[in-house]
């Protein structure tokens, strides 16, 4: 008789890795299934300069659209030709994905922010959407647990809208960041260091950051949190974890007692379907892949008595901002300004309490700012002319580069923003792909416009000179790679797919970890909350929560 695992975990990213660590330590026999291949950070992630690469980082121009990512990191991204998706006619959505052991933790921006009660209870404040089935008091111990383990370098500020946590020392600010901090303070805006799962000292056998600035191409030493260096090793040490890579899960199989029996996966290179069984099925692929699997597993969608599976897809707004120079830094000496790949955070300061309430839009956003020398001198294109004079202009402004961008801007949750199975298009393994319906709401546009105005105000206050030239569109959807929702959590089974433990209301042994549970996005980077929700859900599986 085939082995029956205690749990099957689909996916190996932030949530899959965390679940594997918790469940194996809790004594469960776990099978982890990953659609992509394994990596070896020490071997696969090396410091490569652009001039070391055939196409200088752009990738082969004949294959540009095939991969998410660029020449340095496409191996830890995804081959779009094998894994297509479609969009509705009114939708322009760029879905950034990875299929690799470790998932997006291998190249994430590492931002680790706690959500606050004004976000968990946003609907009660302004009437839009639905409150979360958890609040800050419920989540706090899980945020504590995750931060203590992954290591977050940050500075405690005592801001009610940006809760402090268990922090390692913050990384120092560079010159541009110091100037922007002073500017924001003089405007009365709350600032702090970007909170990053990037170590400033030895932590849980992982070394501190060596400030190469190469994070999004994979960390060679594991100083930035990722599954492969941080959560899989302790899971493997229990002897309770089996990992199978290059296994594309095609559906969750049910038994006659309304319980998940296991999953069917397709071997990536042989196309052979394989059934595996378990007492619990944990979906921890990316948010939309989790929902795709639930849509694939039943004609009406698995665990979909609410009819809301696939609906209320949300993202955070991205794009816009200001690029220019801070003249005070002109002609400065060579410095390692981009070595931590970070910046400062200006916490949301609107619509979080009675006093800060705006009349013209609801919800808020977080800004980031940084500057100084960077691998590619982005300002060069904006300086007109040519010749030796032009070279001098570029060189003198190189140390003075500066930019302000939006980190997380809350988009409203709307039922019509949704995913469904495309009736025609299938992936390389014959599995129907997702079709995305996604547009901006008027409130999203107003919020972006307000951000743009505030970003320029900050830039002026810092004494900055805005440079002419192309600015990124503020209408880029998907650019933040913060897609959440589509199986929202609810107290009542009629109003959502998951309960507060991310267990499906309908099927007791089916859990969904990731962004699926989010009824609203808030303005924080979501990954820390994904992991905290996973920790809480695992407690529930283990009978501890």
């Amino acid at each position, binding site marked *: 008789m085939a082995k029956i695992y205690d749990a099957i975990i689909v996916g190996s990213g932030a949530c899959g890795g965390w679940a594997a660590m918790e469940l194996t330590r809790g004594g469960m026999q776990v099978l982890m299934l990953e659609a992509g291949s394994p990596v070896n950070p020490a071997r696969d992630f090396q*410091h*490569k*300069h*652009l*001039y070391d690469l055939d*196409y*200088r*980082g*752009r990738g*082969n*121009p*004949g294959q540009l659209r095939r991969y998410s990512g660029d020449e340095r990191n496409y191996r830890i991204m995804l081959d779009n030709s094998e894994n297509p998706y479609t969009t509705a006619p009114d939708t322009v959505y760029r879905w950034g994905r990875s299929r690799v052991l470790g998932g997006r933790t291998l190249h994430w921006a590492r931002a680790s922010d706690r959500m606050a009660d004004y976000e968990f209870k946003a609907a009660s404040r302004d009437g839009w959407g639905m409150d979360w089935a958890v609040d800050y008091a419920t989540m706090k111990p899980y945020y504590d647990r995750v931060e203590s383990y992954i290591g977050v370098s940050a500075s405690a500020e005592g801001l009610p809208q940006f809760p402090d946590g268990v922090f390692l020392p913050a*990384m*120092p*600010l*560079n*010159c541009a*960041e*110091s*100037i922007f*901090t*002073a*500017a924001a303070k*003089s405007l009365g805006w709350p600032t702090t260091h970007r909170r990053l799962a990037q170590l400033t000292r030895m932590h849980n056998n992982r070394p501190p*950051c*060596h*400030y*190469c*600035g*190469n994070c999004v191409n994979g960390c060679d030493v594991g100083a930035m949190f990722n599954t492969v260096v941080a959560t899989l090793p302790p899971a493997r040490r229990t002897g309770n974890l089996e990992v199978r890579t290059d296994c594309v899960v095609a559906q969750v199989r049910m038994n006659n007692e309304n319980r998940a029996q296991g999953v069917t996966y397709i071997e990536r290179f042989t196309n052979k379907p394989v059934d595996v069984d378990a007492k619990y099925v944990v979906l921890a692929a990316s948010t939309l892949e989790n929902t795709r699997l639930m849509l694939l597993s039943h004609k009406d969608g698995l665990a979909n008595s609410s009819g809301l599976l696939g609906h209320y897809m949300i993202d955070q707004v991205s794009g816009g901002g200001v690029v220019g120079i801070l003249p*005070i830094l002109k002609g400065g000496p*060579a*410095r*390692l*300004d*981009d*070595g*931590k790949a970070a910046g400062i955070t200006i916490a949301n300061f609107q619509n979080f309490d009675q006093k800060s309430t705006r009349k013209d839009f609801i919800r808020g956003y977080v800004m980031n700012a940084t500057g100084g*020398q*960077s*691998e*590619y*001198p982005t300002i*060069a*294109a904006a300086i*007109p*002319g*040519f*010749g*030796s004079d*032009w*070279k001098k202009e570029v*060189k003198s402004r*190189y140390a003075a580069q500066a930019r302000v961008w939006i980190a997380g801007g809350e988009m409203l949750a709307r039922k019509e923003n949704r995913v469904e199975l495309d009736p025609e298009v299938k992936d390389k393994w014959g599995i129907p792909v997702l079709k995305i319906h996604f547009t901006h709401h008027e409130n999203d546009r107003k919020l972006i416009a307000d951000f743009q105005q505030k970003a320029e105000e900050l830039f002026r*206050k*810092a*004494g900055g000179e805005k440079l002419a030239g192309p600015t990124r569109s503020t209408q880029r959807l998907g650019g933040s790679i913060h897609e959440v929702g589509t199986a929202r959590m609810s107290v009542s089974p009629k109003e959502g797919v998951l309960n507060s433990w991310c267990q499906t209301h309908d099927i007791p042994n089916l859990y969904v970890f990731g962004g699926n549970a989010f009824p609203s996005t808030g303005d924080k980077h979501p990954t820390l909350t994904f992991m905290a929700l996973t920790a809480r859900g695992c407690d529930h599986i283990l009978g501890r929560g």
Partner: protein
Amino acid sequence: MRDNISISRRELAILFAQVLQAAPEYRPQFFSAEDFAALESFTEILIPTDDTPGAREARCAQFIDFYVNASPAEAKERWREAMQALRTAGFHTASAAERPALVAAMSQEHPAHAAYLLIRQENMFAFFTSKPGTVEFLDYRGNSHNDSFPACTHPEHHRV
């Protein structure tokens, strides 16, 4: 027994330089020999060699040729049009002394302005992603192992 040839670092450097000089001329893959010579000259006017390296040391024209050759048909067509515009503007036949003024004219409203912008953009990319551009000209310090991150210690950067 010692039959190794002993050679100083300086001698090695000289030898290396001689080998480089003796290297066969680059044979363009995409551009015709005349177009490639014109492109090389154009890139060296845009980013000249002065007290710091320029497009010549960075071999920008060679990278552009390599990259365009690997590009889809539409990109190749754009480059064919650009080189034709340069030809029509008389760049190919102009003397070295006349060329900078021609480039200056193209940088303004000019029939070959689109060609100027295309070459400027790709030349800039080629230069700033080359070792001479990144390391020698910009003195970029990143993508390296460091013990600490340099904090800003300037009082004037902590007030506005």
